[in-house]
């Protein structure tokens, strides 16, 4: 286990960024563990959410942003709802993902790929084209076995349209993404 030198390795700027972007005060956390206790994903996390909060308090930017946990949080709001100090923990997890993206980190790449595929679909069609999303995801990850078993169950029901329902104003939606890209790069 690494020794953390608290005089040198405490990234106060990181703490401030998290607080600013989430609107939450991380010093309110007294480490009761209620978030970890209620989190349905604790079993899948590499760092339990209460320790993510602790590491944020300690300014451990690299450890936090490289964790798998931040990509496995489903924003189910269990932590936020039950936090005795009214900290919006789920929002902090969201913000940590934003920061990880900016640092080019994604410890669970297939989750990021799936989300990106989803947004690509929205950008192209104005709405999610589910079949296209799946094909896009499978192509990007090379996980060709993904949900193959579900095909026979779902295709005959006509639920998965084979062609996208583009909306008329899809350019409006595309422009939202374009402006967003421009704003984030400026």
């Amino acid at each position, binding site marked *: 286990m690494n020794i953390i030198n608290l005089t040198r390795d405490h990234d106060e700027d990181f703490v401030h960024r998290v607080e600013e972007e989430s609107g939450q005060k991380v010093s309110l956390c007294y*480490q*009761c563990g209620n978030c*970890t*206790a209620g989190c349905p994903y604790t079993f899948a996390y590499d760092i*339990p959410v209460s*320790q993510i909060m602790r590491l944020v308090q300690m300014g451990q930017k690299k450890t936090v942003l490289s964790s798998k946990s931040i990509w496995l949080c489903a924003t189910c709001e269990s932590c936020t709802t039950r936090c005795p100090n009214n900290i919006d923990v789920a929002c902090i997890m969201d913000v940590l993902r934003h920061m990880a993206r900016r640092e080019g980190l994604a410890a669970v790449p297939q989750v990021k790929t799936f989300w990106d595929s989803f947004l690509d679909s929205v950008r192209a069609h104005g709405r999610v084209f589910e079949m296209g999303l799946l094909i896009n995801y499978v192509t990007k990850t090379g996980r060709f076995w993904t949900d193959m078993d579900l095909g026979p169950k779902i295709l005959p029901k006509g639920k998965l349209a084979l062609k996208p329902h583009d909306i008329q104003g899809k350019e409006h939606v595309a422009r939202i993404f374009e402006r967003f890209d421009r704003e984030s790069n400026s």
Partner: protein
Amino acid sequence: MRIGVFVCHCGSNIEGTVDTAAVAKATLEFPEVVYATDTMYACSEPGQDGIIQAIKEKNLTGVVVASCTPRMHEPTFRKAVERAGLNRFMFEMANIREHVSWIGKNREANTNKSLDLVRIAVEKLRRDAPLIPSKFSVNKRVMIIGGGVAGIQAALDCADGGLQVVLVERESTIGGKMAKLDKTFPTVDCSSCILGPKMVDVAQHPNITLHAYSEVDSIGGYVGNFQVKVKKKATYVDWELCTGCGACIEKCPSKKNPDAFNEKIGPCTSINIPFPQAIPKKAYIDATTCRQFVKGKCGVCAKVCPTGAIRYDMTDEIVTEDVGAIVAATGYDLFDIKKIPEYGSGTYPDVITGLQYERLLSASGPTGGHIKRPSDGKEPKNIVFIQCVGSRDKSLDRPYCSGFCCMYTAKQTILTKDHIPDSQSYVFYMDIRSPGKMYDEFTRRAMEEYGARYIRGRVAMVYPKGDKLMVRGADTLAGTQVEIEADLVVLAAGAEAAKGAPQLAEKLRISYDKYGFFMESHPKLKPVETNTAGVYLAGSCQGPKDIPQSVGQGSAAAAKVLALFSKDMLESDPQISRVDIKRCVGCGKCIMTCPFKAIKEVEFRGQKKAEVIETVCQGCGICTSTCPQGAIQLSHFTDNQILAEVNALCQS
């Protein structure tokens, strides 16, 4: 007037951000200021001597001290100037610590502001007149409100000190929360064995009058002479005749009412005596469940009562008690665990409070001291204790620590092992708070000798699975989620202010905090006094306390009352309203607005005039701002004085 100004450094507390020497020097420009100096600690012995010496040497006739809040040291300095031969009301303070040096670090602004505050103190002092207090007699009876262990202790100490005591208790028996406990920490003493004799002492003490099943209705008067109206709620039993034999309870056909004494985990009859050691041991009828009241017919208790004590037509009665001092010892109530639905309280019967668990442990409880879980009466093997339920929780507006839960939970794990040797206790905690003599050792014993498994973390939810309760929590030390299949879940419900506490505080004219706990006069130095003279506090009504702390406060409050009553006459505060009868037109508006009925109408040369009753006036000044003529003036807060302060601040 010859005024001296003393600007205190208060060590570095003031001097750190205020140039006290510059303030002192500048005040010499103020009218009638003939002497000014800065001083290290004005309240210390050399500091006070310096003031006295200056008064004598410089022939000062008035003194301003610029230091801390007058709420702290005004009496100290008034005594000092009196020792130097001045009238003690020829003194004013400027609060340059709490209101200046402690709330900002800008030395220039603070120095400037301090000078302003001295300026208004000087202007006020220039218009002060010497005042002489008058004396009034004291009624040496004391009322104790609340018959828990704090109130019992206060009552016994006052009564042993020779005072007449009136003890008022809301329930039908005294004993409070302590009477419900099985054992006490850290000695594992039997609670009713140590409290019971004290309760008997109350009953037998010739100096104590007990009004049980009674509540304070209204309070009038002031220190030394309060009039308290006490509502004696109808018990429907003539307590003069009731012998406490229990025949009525045996025969009462309404047997399935939730028993408040047993924290509603057991049934009781509509006519009841809460527990065997009850004081007074008298029966009372709960009219909300009694068949005679609900259905209009029954009458069984009246038939079986050997002394004919049942009175269905009894009504509430008001009695007036005249007392000279009041001790509030109204205790606390438990946090309502239903406010945390994820723990399933209210939904799952086997999720209970710590106090309910005490009743399950107690030999006089509903299970005769056998731990049986409420749902099916089975003996639980895995028992989960959850701490801080309604404590240290901002989201529930209960950010404070209730103080005693850590200790009673440790005790309960020990008792659980004693009752059920093959049981396993689990305790979810955030921090163990055990600062008391033998307290921490006690929690260690629970773990080391009794094998209680302590888990550092909170519980997110409790849900049923078969006949078990799944407890899902976290072990933050291991960094993992944990699950326990529990048979019984005990919630360490936090303490909150007793129901009705704010209303009682308003009757007593004392302050309470945002949670309903009563405010002491000073958090460190006047823990049992209030800001209302003659009203004292004891026990958990001021904030959560364990038994020894409550008992200590009961004795402390008694000592305060005994000290107050050691004098036959009290001095009234002379800062009261006075009528200029030349200006008074007898309109009577002041009489109507005075909250204390301290102004009366008198005839003066055939004309109606107002007159202030000196010892009744409390000095609020409402009359002064009501009087259309400016004829009634509150001494030391006259219109002229306040306007002089205003002008001093507005001059540029």
